[in-house]
């Protein structure tokens, strides 16, 4: 048996998400190869080769792959799948974008956002915003799987797989990259942050979000998250959204500030180790899952907490 793992990377560096997918692939079993498709992505491929348990790294390098568009990735991956029993990708926006295309071309049903591998046909995944856990058995010969990063440990390093360049169609493809606006921040990324401070609608403006949430995050060395309401209102950028339809996180410490605790928000953070809630409504649902709660006005409590830490 062999598994093809799609690497998540920035060409220059490998993203941690990849190591979690390798762990899930190891639980599935068989030889593990990693595909790095990018432009000038040798550095990412070399990093992938150091993950323990990897047999080979396949490097598809070319300008058409710089931004990992779904149509270009499909052109590389589908032919490769003749040699593999399974395709595993991270359940990131990049993985979610391309994987169903691969599944459709292989005529198999994808297993999305898995949190457990039971055996080579059977997987666990949350449904209904994490309010139910589905154990599901696939009758398809080949498996196409996206992996929820918070459910798997990072694979160890210390491997020394070979890196092999592979032929990759040069395009043109039916979509083209135009531009991007990436959030710049020195704070830890949400997916890998050990601590996260999140703000909700109660912050009431972008200025107050920055004035109250960011200093606390800095004091804690934390990443910054937000509820959908805070993002919709423009208090925080879209990539801060934690939840069913945003990012799923599981840090050691999650501080929810002025967030009510709708099921869609809980879906993205309820596996955090320690949860703190600050909310003026003692009935807010967030308190039902918080380890420690303070009932009161965030505009008083947060500055005091920031100062005393």
């Amino acid at each position, binding site marked *: 048996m062999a598994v093809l793992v799609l690497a998540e990377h920035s060409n220059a560096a490998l993203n941690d998400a990849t190591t979690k997918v390798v762990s899930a692939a190891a639980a599935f079993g068989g030889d593990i190869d990693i595909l790095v498709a990018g432009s000038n992505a040798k550095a990412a491929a070399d990093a992938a080769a150091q993950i323990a348990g990897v047999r080979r790294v396949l490097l598809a390098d070319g300008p058409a792959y710089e931004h990992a568009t779904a149509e270009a990735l499909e052109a590389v991956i589908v032919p490769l799948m003749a040699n593999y029993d399974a395709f595993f990708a991270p359940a990131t926006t990049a993985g979610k974008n391309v994987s169903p295309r691969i599944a459709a071309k292989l005529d198999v049903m994808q297993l999305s956002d898995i949190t457990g591998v039971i055996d080579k046909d059977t997987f666990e995944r949350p449904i209904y915003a994490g309010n139910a856990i589905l154990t599901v058995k696939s009758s398809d010969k080949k498996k196409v799987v996206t992996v929820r990063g918070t459910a798997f440990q990072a694979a160890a390093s210390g491997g020394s797989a070979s890196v092999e360049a592979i032929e990759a169609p040069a395009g043109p493809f039916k*979509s083209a990259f135009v531009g991007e606006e990436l959030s710049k921040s020195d704070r830890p990324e949400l997916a890998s942050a050990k601590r996260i401070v999140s703000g909700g609608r109660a912050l009431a403006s972008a200025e107050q979000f920055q004035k109250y949430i960011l200093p606390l995050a800095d004091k804690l060395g934390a990443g910054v998250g937000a509820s959908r309401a805070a993002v919709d209102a423009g208090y925080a950028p879209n990539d801060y959204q934690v939840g069913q339809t945003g990012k799923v996180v599981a840090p050691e410490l999650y501080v929810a500030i002025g967030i009510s605790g709708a099921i869609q928000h809980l879906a993205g953070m309820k596996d955090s180790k320690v949860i703190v809630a600050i909310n003026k409504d003692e009935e807010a649902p967030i308190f039902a899952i918080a380890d*420690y709660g303070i009932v009161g006005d965030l505009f008083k409590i947060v500055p005091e907490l920031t100062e005393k830490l």
Partner: protein
Amino acid sequence: MKVLVPVKRVIDYNVRPRVKPDQTGVDLANVKMAMNPFDEISVEEAVRMKEKGIATEIVIVSIGPAQAQETIRVGLAMGGDRGILVQTDERVEPLAVAKILKAIVEQEKADLVIAGKQAIDDDNNQTGQMLAALLDWPQGTFASAVAKDGDKLKVTREVDGGLQTISLDMPAVVTTDLRLNEPRFASLPNIMKAKKKEIAMKTPADYGVDTAARLSVVKVTEPKKREAGEKVADVDTLIAKLKSVGAI
């Protein structure tokens, strides 16, 4: 330009889903159902395109039980022109949904499909991408802005690092994210008008699609329960507690 909008009937997002005691699924008996919220965003986007003169006709499609006609009517009341219900009481997986949609797209000669990024019941996030692959069309997933740009479609996407803009050849598939627009409420006169709009009744067999499930449910269980902790009186106590458990 003809736009096809697939809409799914799902549990209302305000309802807390309950797992059935026999572990076969989530209890949907007597539960409020509604249009998948992302699909409302898709319908809204299509209607705005029509208002701007970009779209000429909006076809609303659902695959599901007879009651999914109500879901289609909501789309028609928002501004859709006509509907197609592909009726089945079976669970239809995204791959089969995509195959049915492909057949409809080809029959209707649609130029654009606007689907939701994810159905909030199964949280699959697959159908739009699968449809694009089956049609060999490009895709713009997780859209927060869509604009016609000559003979191309410019789509801004919500990605993990921020926003990305891509340009798609037409025809294309777009999937919608939360920030694309705010769906309108249908007015009473429009709800009345929608009652007269046509909904064609079909079955998966009409499109020659085998909807047999590839994934079988072994069981559906409750997630691990998280116990509520304690409310603390002040910031000093909070800091002491967090220190005592090693969280800070």
